[in-house]
């Protein structure tokens, strides 16, 4: 069954999802764009407003629920995934959205993140990845590149970074996608896809923190650079990018490389890798474009597969148990085993 596709009595608008709280992110923070896109998409999904629940952990991103006029839960550091699991298991009718950051879900909450993905609870994860700790004022994060100079790493970070989509695929995620804060249209589209996916959807959003890590994603957002550095994925389409649509991804053995296509070149469209959302190997190759300077960063749906959903299996067991043992009868349950009467 699709998620909460009930008919709406009244047409919701973006304003229905804005709470009365003053938004307190730094002016110009990438979080504003994400908030705006979510508020635009939610009214279009056909879900009654009262069925939305937004759940977060700790960090700049995690203030998100306070700005949404939905049910919301601002948790504790790293635990949004576990809180959301409890909410969804208790009431599978709800549309549950986890808002988290790279510190929240990759570091202190890393364990919950991977286990949520493998269980495939039907909730949505929006990972605001700014590759820095914002709310604690500028330490490197688990997604900061090696050598990153920050307050806690004056001589450069020694940590090899996590690669979120690869981590998610490794945890057997059933849906992995990426978008960028400065691509509002694309973001809206991918949020809709996330919602449609049956199971845990993982959406990484590159988000600029202009205070502590400004420019981290300039390659993918600057007007003159982005076309040559961003690969927009489309299912069933060859991987083409570049200002003039003259570059593509060719797979030499297992190694992806950028080739030029065009009239004079030795490569044609037929030599390019064709995206297949359902192919885990392709998704895995694409996920490893992250941090590579010689390859564009893929955005869109890297991977999507159908897989059994945890809370449905749980509900099935409940129904099964009723069939097998009858509806729970407390008196009978308490009286199980050998009993005797004292007069």
């Amino acid at each position, binding site marked *: 069954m699709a998620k909460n596709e009930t008919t709406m009595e009244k047409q919701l608008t973006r304003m229905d999802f804005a709470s009365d709280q003053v938004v307190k992110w730094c002016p110009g923070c990438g979080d504003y764009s994400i908030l705006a896109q979510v508020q635009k998409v939610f009214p279009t999904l056909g879900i009654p407003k009262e069925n939305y629940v937004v759940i977060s952990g700790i960090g700049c991103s995690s203030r998100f629920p306070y700005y949404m006029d939905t049910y919301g*839960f601002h948790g504790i550091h790293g635990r949004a995934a576990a809180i959301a699991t409890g909410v969804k298991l208790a009431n599978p009718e709800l549309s549950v959205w986890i808002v988290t950051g790279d510190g929240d879900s990759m570091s202190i909450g890393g364990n919950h993140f991977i286990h949520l993905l493998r269980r495939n609870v039907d909730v949505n994860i929006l990972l605001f990845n700014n590759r820095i700790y914002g709310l604690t004022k500028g330490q490197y994060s688990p997604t900061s590149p090696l050598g990153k100079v920050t307050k806690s790493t004056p001589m450069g970070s020694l940590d090899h970074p996590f690669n979120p989509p690869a981590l998610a695929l490794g945890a057997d995620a059933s849906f992995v996608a990426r978008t960028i804060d400065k691509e509002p249209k694309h973001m809206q589209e991918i949020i809709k896809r996330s919602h449609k996916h049956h199971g845990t959807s993982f959406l990484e959003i590159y988000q600029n923190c202009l205070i502590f890590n400004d420019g981290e994603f300039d390659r993918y957002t600057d007007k003159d650079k982005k076309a040559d550095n961003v690969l927009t994925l489309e299912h069933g389409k060859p991987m083409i990018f570049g200002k003039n649509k003259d570059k593509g991804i060719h797979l030499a053995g297992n190694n992806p490389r950028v080739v030029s296509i065009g009239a004079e070149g030795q490569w044609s469209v037929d030599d390019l890798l064709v995206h297949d959302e359902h192919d885990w190997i392709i998704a895995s190759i694409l996920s490893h474009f992250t941090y590579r300077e010689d390859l564009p960063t893929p955005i869109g749906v890297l991977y999507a597969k159908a897989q059994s959903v945890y809370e449905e299996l749980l509900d099935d067991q409940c129904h099964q148990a009723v069939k097998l043992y009858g509806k729970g009868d407390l008196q009978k349950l308490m009286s199980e085993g050998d009993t005797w009467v004292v007069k």
Partner: protein
Amino acid sequence: MPKTLKHIDDVTIRFAGDSGDGMQLTGDRFTSATAIIGNDLSTLPDYPAEIRAPAGSLAGVSAFQLHFSSQEIFSPGDNPDVLVAMNPAALKVHLKELTRGGIIIVNTASFTAKNLKLAQYETNPLDDKSLRDYVVYPVDMSRLVAHACEDMGITTKTVERTKNMFALGVLYWMYNRPMDTTIKWLKQKFAKKPEIVEANTRALQAGFNYGSTNRIFTTNYKVDAAKLNPGTYRNISGNQATALGLVAASVRANLPLFYGSYPITPASDILHHLAGFRNFKVKTFQAEDEIAGITSAIGAAFAGSLAATGTSGPGVALKTEAMGLAVMTELPLVIVNVQRGGPATGLPTKTEQADLFQALYGRNGEAPIPVISARSPGDCFAAAFEAAQVALKYMTPVMVLTDGYVGNGSEPWIIPNVADLPEIKPNFFQGDEDEAFLPYKRNPDTLARDWVAPGTPGREHRIGGLEKEDGSGNVNYDPENHHKMVTLRDEKIKRVVEDIRPCRIIGEQEGDLLILTWGSTRGAARAALQKLLKEGKSVGHMHLRWLNPLPQDLGGILDKFEKILIPEINLGQLAQIIRARYLKEPHQLNLVRGRPFLTREIMDKVNELTG
């Protein structure tokens, strides 16, 4: 040779053997047969932390003690009257606690040179007269079961495994217990392996017949049914009772039960039991860690379930921050701590009462939560039920303290009537459609905030770990508001006192000495009290069920006695609270050995103090 039948009132038996010998199971079966007869009983399983330490070693000895009587009893007994030792190591470990003149039944076949060496015996105790103060029944159980199963064509190993049933058969004869419940149980348990049922049944019967025909056994005993309160009884373990208490609360509150938990000794059985109740729509969730155990439960509570999590002390340590979140968000939640020896990994399979301070104070900030303790296995039902009542009424996390002894031990339990269990009314928002909903608006009596689950139209709201403005629930950092909220949260928990029954003193109502207990220490204290009163001592016993808040009339009661004695399996945690709160100087009895107090130890201390 004619046999004599003797009537006795009270027996304590200890079954001891290798971890692989099935001693827990043997004890369970004897318990079941004893319960059916209508004796009062109390059990104490005692098993090593290792699943199977090397066979025959001292570390691998597993034991099960059972005290049964024709009188009301409160504890699993001090020293056993009968020791069943399946190998030399079991004899070595447990002999020192056997009553002088007590009965020893041994499997002689296991007294091999190798096993004697493993048990660090230099000479065979069966031959060297070191057991002359006891009545020893040497039985070659291995040979006898081999004989009983001779024609079955099953492996020697399978036959050898039935020797615990042989020992059980001997004891069934000796104490006049029926075999049929055990045979029925074997049939159910091994439904798919009829040869196992057959072999075990033969071993059981062979043991019984051996007792009744062999001339070494001259006497058997009859222990009459106890005069217990009228009702229908079953035998129940503490962890089982906790699970049932939670389900009962969910039924009476008309809320689905969610239980998020991570496996940990000795609390995992609660999860196992609840996982079998899917037809009650009980949703158990084996989380990836302790933190996810509690935070998933907090999520479920937000979504409108009766939510609970269960663990032992080390797990509570990991749940600390999340408990604070439940305090801040004012959501109903039951947290069960089946205490074990600590700190750190400590004594995983042994009992202790040293998590009282952790329960009361183990959180950052001012984060008071109500704490209730279970006094016996059967009482875990009521404690879990009451905890849920308070959680739902006051919108607060509540901690239930049980312990390894209460959790794994068992006793006869009156099966309550569902209709007699109080109905629980969750504190859901009652306002009509036009009334604005303020998530932190409080009930003026209980100070509980209203509960609205997601999915309710028009009541969308946000909660979380940041300080909230009184009423509106908006994030608020105002100094005065914070002080107000800290005070309100504290006052709310203080008001739980309204729901706490007044103190009841057993024995003398005033006098020389009051024994004050909490949790599982109550059993040994009550047993001691009975004996002390018979000796004419001016002693009373008061048991505390709630540790936070403390009953209103406790102060007055403490004034009625010259001295107060607090026995605790810790270094004096309740004593410190009493000292701080009532400016009294209680005497302490603190023995932290991973096992319950003996009745005698409490009596000795009382005698020392009362001169």
